């Protein structure tokens, strides 16, 4: 695997985004859907009720468009950030609007009427959120791992409650060195839409530029040509 990584690095990752076709995007969407399925099962188990996750879109966006998608640069959100390590590298973000994050915390910790307005935020609440991100990304990654036969594992989650622009840009640093665009596998998380307690979050999956080639290669659809 190491050899392959080196070999692939020789191919300039320069125009990787130009080599990505709609077939590749469809494959990412399929992987995303399977990963989301696993993650939804885990989430349902924690919360004790049925949760749905699906991948509505896999898109190529500019940095600014991606930040808009996550709620706009100045919107305050809770985000859990994990590095993907192993044969392929990348970043994962689990982003929740504060109101939704509070609801998750209430359900996971059994607290009533939790709010982020009271500082400092209790350690247990933060830990619950990190754990949520951890479980979601873990199940997401393990399905990708099964699919590709690559060994992938998430780093320890880092949590941050701040503006979207400030948090998401941290995950764009690697990509920004080779491109002004990002492939976003966007996942919506929620209960049935009819339910009044619909929780709406975003899950972003961003591979490092060199890793796209590795992932597609292991799936039998290399980026050549």
């Amino acid at each position, binding site marked *: 695997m190491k050899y392959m990584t080196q070999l692939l690095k020789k191919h*300039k990752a320069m125009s990787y985004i130009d080599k990505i076709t709609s077939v590749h995007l469809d494959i990412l969407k399929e992987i995303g859907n399977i990963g989301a399925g696993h993650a939804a099962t885990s989430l349902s188990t924690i919360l004790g009720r049925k949760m749905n996750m699906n991948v509505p879109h896999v898109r190529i966006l500019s940095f600014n468009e991606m930040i808009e998608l996550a709620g706009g640069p100045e919107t305050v959100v809770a985000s859990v950030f994990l590095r993907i390590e192993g044969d392929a590298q990348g970043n994962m973000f689990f982003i929740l609007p504060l109101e939704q994050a509070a609801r998750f915390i209430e359900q996971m910790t059994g607290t009533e009427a939790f709010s982020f307005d009271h500082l400092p935020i209790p350690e247990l609440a933060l830990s619950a959120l990190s754990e949520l991100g951890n479980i979601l990304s873990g199940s997401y990654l393990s399905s990708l791992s099964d699919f590709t036969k690559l060994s992938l594992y998430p780093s320890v989650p880092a949590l941050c409650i701040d503006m979207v622009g400030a948090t998401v840009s*941290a995950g764009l640093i690697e990509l*920004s060195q080779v491109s002004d665009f990002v492939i976003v596998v966007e996942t919506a998380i929620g209960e049935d839409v009819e339910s009044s307690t619909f929780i709406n979050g975003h899950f972003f999956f961003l591979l490092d530029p060199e890793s796209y080639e590795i992932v597609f290669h292991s799936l039998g659809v290399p980026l050549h040509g």
Partner: protein
Amino acid sequence: MVELSNIIKVGIADMNIVHSPALIRTSGLGSCVGVVVYDQSKEIAGMAHVMLPDSSLSKMGQINHAKYADTAIKELVERIVQDGASIRKLKAKIAGGSQMFQFSSGTDLMRIGPRNVEAVKKELMALRIPIMAEDVGGNSGRTIEFNPKTSLLNIRTVNKGTKEV
């Protein structure tokens, strides 16, 4: 209200120029650095939202100048001078360069905030533009807004409120 209606927005890895009475703003600075270069006598200012310290980090053929500290500041100065500012009267204010996530096994890229700040300062010094105020580092996101009429930079963070420098 009339004044409020005219705010020029600068996105990530983006830059723009503003003339009084309009304001210029960039939102959600994390590890990125917002650089304001201004000429108070002409009431004109330029702002860049810098993402990376050095254009040599780029692995692309064509680069977006606003993304890197070195190229962004050069171009910003060029553009503001073209718009009528006097190069010897230029001053700067900077904000940003936080570390948003704390990782124990941090790669060098996780330290990007401080490196961006260093690079911005170095470039401003090379162009002999004095830094009149700065609000850098820490671990909060910032939204900044500059008024070329008063030369004041308004900085807003989520937990520490608003201040003007």
